[in-house]
């Protein structure tokens, strides 16, 4: 069955207030191209970053987190050039980042660890203690704030990781697989937290769990082989699934939309390859 054509994958429709603007972003890991001349603009709200394994989601998140430098292209975050040293420091003060592999110091308590990250983020000292308590409370760890990190369960460690990401009330929050290790109830609460912080900040959630995107994200960017395969609202992705799998229940519609968008992008990419001059006899 041939999937219907997905929405145009330009990724260039600028939101009302742009906080992330990526132009021609290329990231190479030795000979592999992780991101291929990617263009993307994002504004406040919760953005889901979907894609199969190895599509380039983590590479994109790492560039947006100013952890990795692009091989080519321009990255503008919060109105500043991420390539300039001084501006990068300013961006980092307004950034929250939860890496996919979240490391912590087991000897620290939750409060100490989050306060440590607040210091790393150069938060004003007089605001930090209250900000730490607020962040820990928001992730539901208030009753464990003085517990050692090593005593926390995997889900709690993840929540502590989210607390350190939001401690500075960042305007750009980058979460790489944030729901890994959370149980279903915590996941529901986490999605509510995402919607809350997304009301004022730009939240980018990289995940392979389509249901997280359906429940918490207003917009979706689907990445495949380092390129944007789909860009639109969650509703548009769901609608794409409803068209392609009208007979299925609506619960799976976004998954079908994900699949349809992916196949459509692959088909389009294949067509471009087939018609390229070098392949013409």
């Amino acid at each position, binding site marked *: 069955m041939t999937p219907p054509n997905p929405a145009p994958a330009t990724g260039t429709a600028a939101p009302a207030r742009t906080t992330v603007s990526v132009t021609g972003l290329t990231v190479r890991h030795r000979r592999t191209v992780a991101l291929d001349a990617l263009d993307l603009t994002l504004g406040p709200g919760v953005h889901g970053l979907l894609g199969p394994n190895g599509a380039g989601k983590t590479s994109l998140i*790492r560039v947006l987190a100013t952890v990795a430098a692009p091989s080519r292209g321009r990255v503008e975050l919060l109105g500043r050039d991420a390539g300039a040293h001084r501006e990068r420091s300013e961006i*980092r*003060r307004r950034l929250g980042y939860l890496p996919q592999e979240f*490391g912590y*110091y087991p000897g*620290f308590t939750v409060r100490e660890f989050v306060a440590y990250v607040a210091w*790393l983020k150069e938060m004003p000292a007089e605001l930090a203690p209250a900000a730490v308590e607020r962040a820990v409370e928001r992730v539901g760890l208030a009753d464990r704030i003085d517990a050692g990190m090593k005593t926390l369960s995997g889900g709690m460690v993840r929540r502590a990781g989210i607390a350190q990401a939001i401690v500075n009330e960042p305007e750009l929050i980058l979460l790489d697989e944030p729901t890994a290790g959370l149980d279903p109830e915590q996941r529901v609460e986490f999605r509510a*937290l995402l*919607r809350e912080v997304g009301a004022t900040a730009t939240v980018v959630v990289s995940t392979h769990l389509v249901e997280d995107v359906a429940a918490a994200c207003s917009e979706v960017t689907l990445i495949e082989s380092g390129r944007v395969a789909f860009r639109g609202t969650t509703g548009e992705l769901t609608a794409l699934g409803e068209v392609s799998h009208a007979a299925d229940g609506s619960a799976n519609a976004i998954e079908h939309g994900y699949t349809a968008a992916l196949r459509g992008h692959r088909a389009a990419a294949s067509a471009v390859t087939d018609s390229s001059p070098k392949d013409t006899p």
Partner: protein
Amino acid sequence: MTTSPAPARAAAVPPRTPPRTRTSSVLRTELRRGAGPWTGGAVAVTILVTMYGKAPGWQGRWADVTDMLHVAAGLLAGPLALAAGCRQGGRDRRRGTLELLRSVPRGRLRRTLLAVAPAALWPAAGLLLPAAVCLLATWPYVSGGRPYLELLAADAVALAALGTLGHLVGLLVPWRLTAPLLAVVGYVGLALSAYTRSSARWLGPAAEHHFAWDEPVWWFAPVSAVWSGGLALAALLAYAARARLRLLALLPLAAAIAAAVPVLRLPDEGPWRPDPEVARLVCDGGAPQVCLPSIDRALLPDVSKALAPLNARLRGLPGAPTRWVLGPGAPRPGEVELPDPSQDAVRGRLERPDLYLNSAVQWLFSDTCREGDLGGPNAERASEIHLAVAEWLAPTPEDYGVPLGPAAQRYVDTLRAKPPTAQRDYLARYLAADTCRPDEVPIP
């Protein structure tokens, strides 16, 4: 997770510039958590156990306790500080926090300074605590001088520097066995530097010094601290400072090199010079007179009492010494050097006067003979007579040494059986003889 509405951003969002920083609370956290306190504890226990094992040998003089602490700190705590710092340096790699750290605005220099703090401060604290205990334990039994606190401070700086260098190695070398290997290499390096004959040994933190009546030149401790601290700071800046500030590392490096120059120019005895007040002789009224340096003034009555039986035999004899002395410089004519009584003293008392007397007799008759002097047909007999005379004057304690052979024992029995005047006559002849020439040694 709660979903209560966030407070108004105007109230919650901190002002962006300039960022004010207060590192005291995170510094406290860094110092309290992790391996830092364990490192400090390990250093403290290592030094305390070492000092306990060597007590009471260091407990009577400030110089002895300082020197013993110096060697324990340099040779044992130094490698420990290196290894602990190395492990601390690899913490972020082991814990997987590098990714998060790369996304924060706080500069690498300040982050590194904070992370280094436990590796630098805890070993230093681990030295200062047992040092305070040992100094307090010494205080009641010293007769003079002063504790060389500036040397202990320089040792603490050296330990902090070693911890810092270990931390930097841990940051740069991602290998599991780096820390233990660094400890072994550090121990060998510090030991070799301590026992080399060149003046470069005084740059190492474990060089030993023996003379209790000496004091270090005033500039040695601060210069040592600049040397070790400067090297560590230069390495830290070279690693952690931003590219444009990296040249700043040359400043502490230049200071360290400048500090090394006067140390390398020190004479063989290093930075130690006799302290006239400490080395001043304090003598009893006996004959032969017993003289000790003023730092051992408290031991003088015990030493006089221990030597009394021997002095009674020597008194008035031609060839007998006029003074027993201990102090800087070679004994003058008529003087005989005394064994160091602090080696046999326990908390200000000469615990084994019999052993001390025995040592004194050995020193009285010790002579530097030329090669071939002790040869010839009578050499064996002369050797037996030497042993017998020493045993007669100061019997070897039963739990010490080996029993005399039958020939020597016969001489002892002969000497003991003589009337007092004959004994004095023999001893005068023995003292007058050249003991390096076996034919001249009188037979009892």
